């Protein structure tokens, strides 16, 4: 088994920082499946199979005091040696390497490298069993954190410097059929504007335009970006995608025209009202589309009290 390649001085500072910042208790599995000393190895074999695990700590009835651990290796040896009916106590490993829940994750990583066990029981200050940690737990936790960081970096890279007169700009990446995140970009735009005490009517018009354009990216396009720009007297929302393009823009603008299929309609889209809605709430509205290349829809909404330039 190769070692986890992040425990070195050459690792990026972010990763080093991460494995010291995260504690074993943030990463471990807290619902530990245990067995008792008198549990037959055969039953532990079944538990492993049923729960898909490779090690079972042996504890008192409350699952707190740890006496040993039975691993898949112990079970294989028991099957070989013909003593699978014996109680766990006779054959469990007693020389336990354990971790403490307050230790930094770095300890768990170096233990996994050093001791070549697949898992370590985790004890609290009172020496009670509170969790178990495997390389899988660690990989998942690290991936989650690294993903968050990459997302932050991406945001920073794609936010171009603002133009003069621009007060805020956000670029959201929108993926095809990503209904899980559908509406998050427009919700983000709305939130940003709410902090600026915009009047509710204008806020609603902007939200409708942003939402309809975001949904069209998800439902009809190959994916693209939703860009929001706030200037002194106006808000601009631009949806730009990578295809497939709209063959007949005039027709697409008709109320009720939709190419959405049954399953899209079952998700609540396809009234053919999105583009007309967005146009109705906008002061300026343009669509540029080329089949095979993509579509750019731009909606501008003037802010009240400001005459548009």
């Amino acid at each position, binding site marked *: 088994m190769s070692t986890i390649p992040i425990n070195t001085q050459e690792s990026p500072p972010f990763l080093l920082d991460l494995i010291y910042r995260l504690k074993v208790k943030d990463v471990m599995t807290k619902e530990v499946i245990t067995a008792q000393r008198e549990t037959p190895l055969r039953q532990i074999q079944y538990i492993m199979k049923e729960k898909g695990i490779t090690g079972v700590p042996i504890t008192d009835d409350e699952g707190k005091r740890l006496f040993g651990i039975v691993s898949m290796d112990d079970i294989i040896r028991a099957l070989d040696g013909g003593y699978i009916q014996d109680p766990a106590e006779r054959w469990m490993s007693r020389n336990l390497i354990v971790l403490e829940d307050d230790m930094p994750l770095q300890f768990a990583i170096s233990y996994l490298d050093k001791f070549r066990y697949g898992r370590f029981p985790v004890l609290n200050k009172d020496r009670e069993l509170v969790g178990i940690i495997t390389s899988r737990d660690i990989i998942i936790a690290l991936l989650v954190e690294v993903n968050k960081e990459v997302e932050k970096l991406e945001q920073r890279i794609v936010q171009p410097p603002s133009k003069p007169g621009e007060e805020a700009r956000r670029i959201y990446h929108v993926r095809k059929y990503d209904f899980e995140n559908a509406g998050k970009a427009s*919700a983000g735009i709305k939130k940003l504007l709410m902090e600026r005490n915009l009047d509710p009517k204008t806020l609603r018009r902007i939200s*409708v335009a942003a939402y309809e354009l975001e949904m069209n990216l998800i439902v009809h396009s190959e994916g693209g970006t939703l860009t929001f720009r706030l200037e002194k007297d106006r808000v601009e929302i631009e949806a730009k995608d990578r295809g497939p393009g709209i063959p007949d823009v005039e027709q697409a603008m008709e109320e009720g025209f939709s190419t959405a299929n049954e399953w899209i309609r079952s998700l609540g889209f396809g009234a053919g009202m999105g583009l007309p809605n967005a146009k109705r709430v906008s002061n300026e509205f343009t669509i540029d589309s080329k089949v095979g290349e993509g579509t750019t829809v731009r909606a501008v909404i003037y802010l009240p009290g400001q005459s548009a330039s």
Partner: protein
Amino acid sequence: MKLETVLQRIPCTIIVKGKGFDELDLRSIVASDLMSDVLTAVDDRFLIVTSLNSEQVIRTADIVGAPAVLLVNGKQPQNGMVRLAEEFGITLLSTPLPTYKVCYLLGCFLESK
């Protein structure tokens, strides 16, 4: 029409009690399973009657300023829907009745006023 009226006239269960639940005043009703239809509404403060049980309903309600959603046909909300309704403070109800029955019952009440 008070939300209370809806609760009295339509057999329904309350899934989420949103902002101002006790004195909610509803100006009208919009019934549709397609959210862009709902987004054409010019009013706000209406009740959304729908059989669509996805997060998009709550997002739509939030955008148009509809304080309450009534799921028909005994539809139960999908996972994220409840969480989002709580986050946005939108009241979420569910009834076994179909859309037309709900609209008929509430429509009769509104007409009689």
